[in-house]
C-alpha cells in the first residue's frame, strides 16, 4: 500500500518533471513495482484519452450550434393570403412602415448591447478566501488593474471571468470573448458550473458589442429556455423581436 502511494506520488511529480531517481531505480529493479507503474501510466493514458474525447465533443457541440444558427432561414415563410387580407396588410404596412423603417435603420447589435449591458456586481462571499488584489481592483472599477492582477494571478474560472468583465468595460471585446469562452470550456470539461452562467450571459453580450448577433442569439435563446439560469429573468426581458430584426439586417 505504501509503495503504491509512493508510486502515485512519483507519477504526479514525474508529470511535472520532478520524479525522483530513487523511485526510478525501484521501478527498474523491482518487477512488482514496474508492473504497478505500468498500470498507473496506462490509467493516466486512459484519463487523457477520455479528456481529449470530452474536449473534442464539447467543441463539436459548439460547431453544431453554429451550424444550426447559420442554417436558420433569415426570411419568413411566404403564405398565400387572400386579396382582402393583402389589402389589410398593405394598409398596415403603410401605417407601420415608417416606424419599422426607422427602427430598422437605427437598430444594430451595438445598440442592443448599449440597451442590455449592465455591470456585473461581484459578490465577495463567493471567493475562496480574502479578497485578493484582483477582486479589490474589480470593486474599485479599476479595470486596468484587474487585468494587471490577472496576469500575475493563478488562472481559474473566477479570474478569467473578472478579466473578461474588465476587457468588456474597456471595450476590448475580442479579449473578453476569449476569457468567457475559457470559463465555459473549463466548466464543460469539468462538468462544473463555476462562473459558467455568468460567462454565458456576458459572452452573448460581448458578441452583441461586436455586432455579431448571430453568435449572441443562440446563447440568449438557451438562457431564455432555462428558467433556472442565473440570467434567465434578465434575458426574458429582452426583445427577441429586435434581436431577430438585427439578425435579419446583419444577414443581408
Amino acid at each position: 500500500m505504501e509503495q503504491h502511494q509512493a508510486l502515485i506520488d512519483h507519477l504526479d511529480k514525474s508529470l511535472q518533471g520532478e520524479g525522483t531517481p530513487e523511485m526510478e531505480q525501484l521501478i527498474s529493479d523491482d518487477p512488482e513495482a514496474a508492473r504497478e507503474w505500468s498500470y498507473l501510466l496506462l490509467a493516466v493514458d486512459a484519463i487523457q484519452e477520455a479528456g481529449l474525447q470530452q474536449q473534442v465533443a464539447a467543441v463539436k457541440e459548439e460547431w453544431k450550434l453554429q451550424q444550426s444558427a447559420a442554417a436558420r432561414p433569415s426570411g419568413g415563410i411566404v403564405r398565400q393570403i387572400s386579396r382582402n387580407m393583402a389589402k389589410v396588410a398593405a394598409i398596415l404596412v403603410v401605417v407601420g412602415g415608417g416606424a419599422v423603417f426607422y427602427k430598422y435603420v437605427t437598430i444594430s447589435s451595438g445598440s442592443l448591447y448599449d440597451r442590455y449591458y449592465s455591470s456585473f456586481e461581484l459578490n465577495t462571499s463567493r471567493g475562496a478566501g480574502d479578497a485578493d488584489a484582483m477582486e479589490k481592483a474589480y470593486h474599485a472599477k479599476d479595470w486596468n488593474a484587474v487585468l494587471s492582477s490577472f496576469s500575475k494571478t493563478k488562472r481559474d474560472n473566477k479570474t478569467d471571468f473578472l478579466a473578461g468583465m474588465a476587457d468588456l468595460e474597456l471595450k476590448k471585446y475580442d479579449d473578453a470573448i476569449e476569457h468567457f469562452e475559457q470559463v465555459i470550456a473549463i466548466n464543460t470539461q469539468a462538468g462544473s458550473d463555476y462562473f459558467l452562467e455568468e460567462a454565458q450571459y456576458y459572452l452573448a453580450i460581448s458578441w452583441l458589442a461586436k455586432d455579431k448577433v448571430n453568435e449572441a442569439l443562440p446563447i440568449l435563446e438557451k438562457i431564455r429556455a432555462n428558467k433556472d439560469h442565473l440570467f434567465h429573468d434578465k434575458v426574458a426581458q429582452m426583445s427577441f423581436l429586435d434581436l431577430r430584426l438585427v439578425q435579419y439586417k446583419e444577414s443581408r
Partner: protein
Amino acid sequence: MRVAEKYTDVELIGAVQEEKNLNGAILFIYQQYAASTSSFIIHYGGSEQDAEDVFQETVISFIDIVKKGKFRMEASVKTFLVSVARNIWFNELKKRERSGHREKLFEHGRDQEEEDISFQISDLEKKRQLRDLVHQLGEPCKKILMLFYYDDLSMKEIVEHLPYENEQVVRNKKYKCLQSLTGLIKNNPEIARQISELVK
C-alpha cells in the same frame, strides 16, 4: 460561440502540438473539414450520425498523432484527415460485417499513404477501450481525475471546482479513484496486455 481563427496547416499543427488555444484549432478543423469528410462517409453507406461519430474519432486521432509528433507533414491536413476518416469508417464497416461489395469498393480506393495511416491509428480500438474504462468510473471520480491529469489543475484549484472541503480530501479521493481505475484495467487482462505496448 466564436468565429474560428484561420490556420495554415503549419499553424494548425503548431497550435495542436503546443495546445495553444486547442479549442479554437478543433473548431477550425470542424468548420473546414467536417462537411467534406461527412459526405464521404454518407456516400459509403454511413448515416449522418455515423459521419459525426467518425469525424469526432478522426479529430481525436489527428490530435493524438500530432501531439506524439507522428504527423510527418507529407500530406496536407485535409488529405490526412480524410484518409484517417476513411480508415476509421472502413474498420467500422468491417466490424459491422457489412456486404463484401461495399468493402471492396472501399478497398479499391485505398493507397499506400492510407496503409501508413492505418498503421498509425491501429491502436484506436485499444484507446476506445481505455476511454470506456474511465467512463465506468463514477462521475465524481471521472471529474477529479480529468481535472488533475488532463486539465493539469492543482489540488487547490480542484477544491474550487468541486464540492470538497480541502486539498487533503481531494488528494485522498484522487488516490482512491486512481486505484479504482487501475483496478478496472487489471481486471481486464486483455486490455492491459494489448495496451501495455503503448506505454513502453
